[in-house]
């Protein structure tokens, strides 16, 4: 296992070095901007996405009956991650007025359908859990 670790680690370092080397001709201002985006992603996740999730979980744990905790948490994982993923299309930020074939779906309606399905799943899950608890 030691050998595998050393080889894998070495290859990893080489890949990182190669990636940085491909940027040797890129303007400093572009590198600075990309670095801000790199750091910004981590900060947005660590200081916003996770704390909000933790706060929601804290509230849910206290407010929800025990049988609903699992289903609600599962529903949150599905709907939350897919909503973050869909931000670019939900916001239609890339839309071009002269090109109706780009972003040509009703994404908000799609999101509502997904949210509805998740809600039904959470309800059904909670009902099943409650029955088990009663029994």
């Amino acid at each position, binding site marked *: *296992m030691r050998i*595998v*670790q*050393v080889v*894998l*680690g070495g*290859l*990893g370092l*080489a*890949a*990182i070095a*190669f*990636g*940085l080397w*491909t*940027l040797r001709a*890129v303007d400093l*201002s*572009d590198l600075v*901007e*990309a670095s801000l*985006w*790199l*750091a910004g*992603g*981590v900060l947005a*996740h*660590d200081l916003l996405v*996770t704390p909000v999730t933790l706060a929601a979980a804290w509230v849910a744990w206290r407010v929800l009956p*025990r049988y609903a*905790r*699992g289903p609600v*948490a*599962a529903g949150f*994982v*599905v709907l*939350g*991650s*897919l909503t*973050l*993923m*869909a931000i*670019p*299309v939900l916001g239609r*930020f*890339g839309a*071009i007025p*002269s*090109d109706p*074939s*780009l*972003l*040509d*779906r009703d*994404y908000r309606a*799609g999101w509502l*359908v*997904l949210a509805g399905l998740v809600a039904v799943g959470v309800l059904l899950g909670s009902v099943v859990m409650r029955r*088990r*608890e009663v029994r």
Partner: protein
Amino acid sequence: MRLVPRETDFSGWLRSPRVAARVGVWLGVCFGVAFITGLISHVAYEPPGWLTFPTRPVSLYRITQGTHVVAGTMAVPLLLVKLWVVYPKLFAKVPWGDVRRLVVHGLERASIAALVAAAIFQLVTGLANSSQWYPWGSFSFRDMHYAVAWVAIGSLALHVAVKLRIARAALASDVNSGDPVGGVPDVEAPADSSHGLTRRGLLRTTWVAAGLAGLSTAGISVPWLRDVSIFGIRSGDGPQGVPINQTAVEARVTAAASKASYRLEIVNGATRRRLSRADLEAMPQRTEVLPIACVEGWSASAEWGGVRLRDLLAVVGAPSESVVAFVSLEEDGAFNTSELPAQFSDDPLTLIALRLNGADLSIDHGYPCRLIAPARPGVFQTKWLSRIEVVA
């Protein structure tokens, strides 16, 4: 009250190396697939001298780029869950007193920071680019997405190397076990869900989320999934049944492309020919079914009619296997010219298309004529051709 929590403040059975390792495996698979398909796309864009990009299957780029975007999309829920599981590590105690351990700790934190930053960057820039949204100011998406891909895959390999012992032990043991793995403490987890989400429940939920993320997007390249791909950037429809990436209005070619005096110039050294659209229509016509497949991951198959490029090159006496440059009527823009490698210019399926799905090309599809070649990224299928020149 402390503002910054300690690692030990986080409780519960879900934040376990047994969960992290299991999610990590699939996250690694998604990043690996995205990395390899991304390299293929990179080679298709900038072929190195030592490599000849194949022309078959005709759907090659359609498949690899569709896979690239779907793998990256599926990684979103996986990455979010993985980071949530290991979040307390961010507040792990720093061994300030012991220099040796401090250095090791610092290096590990640096490698994790590189991995997390690169992973989030790749998914954010990739998803944005896929929807043709460029929220960053000036850096080149291609340069950065390519460089950071190497950093992401490299720091992932480094991470796997460092965690290999723990990950193997975690994967080999029962998911609900509370035994320490590779020296990392764990807590016994309940197997039944009466107290909330179980480890198995979280893992299953994560697989469902990743699967739904894939389904909600895959229709951009898999036609029979179109109806369920609620977040697909294109439904796959458009004028003449094919989506458009750049319109004539955007490219500012409407006037030049509609002129009756339009001529396509074909150049081979000193030999030049100028052909009108009627001249092109008078040549032997071919019909081929070829996909148009773009870097954003969407693709659509269509029936193209027109003149074989080989036949056209013969008009100016170009030898077979010529490298050919294509110039658009579009005056500026990153992709108003393209260079077609020899194997594509010689391919019998490569057409100068005049018709699409049984009708004359619409102006947004490249009227008077456009290039369509098998297994090529869409941006190189130059529209509104003004000149075709043999360059080597």
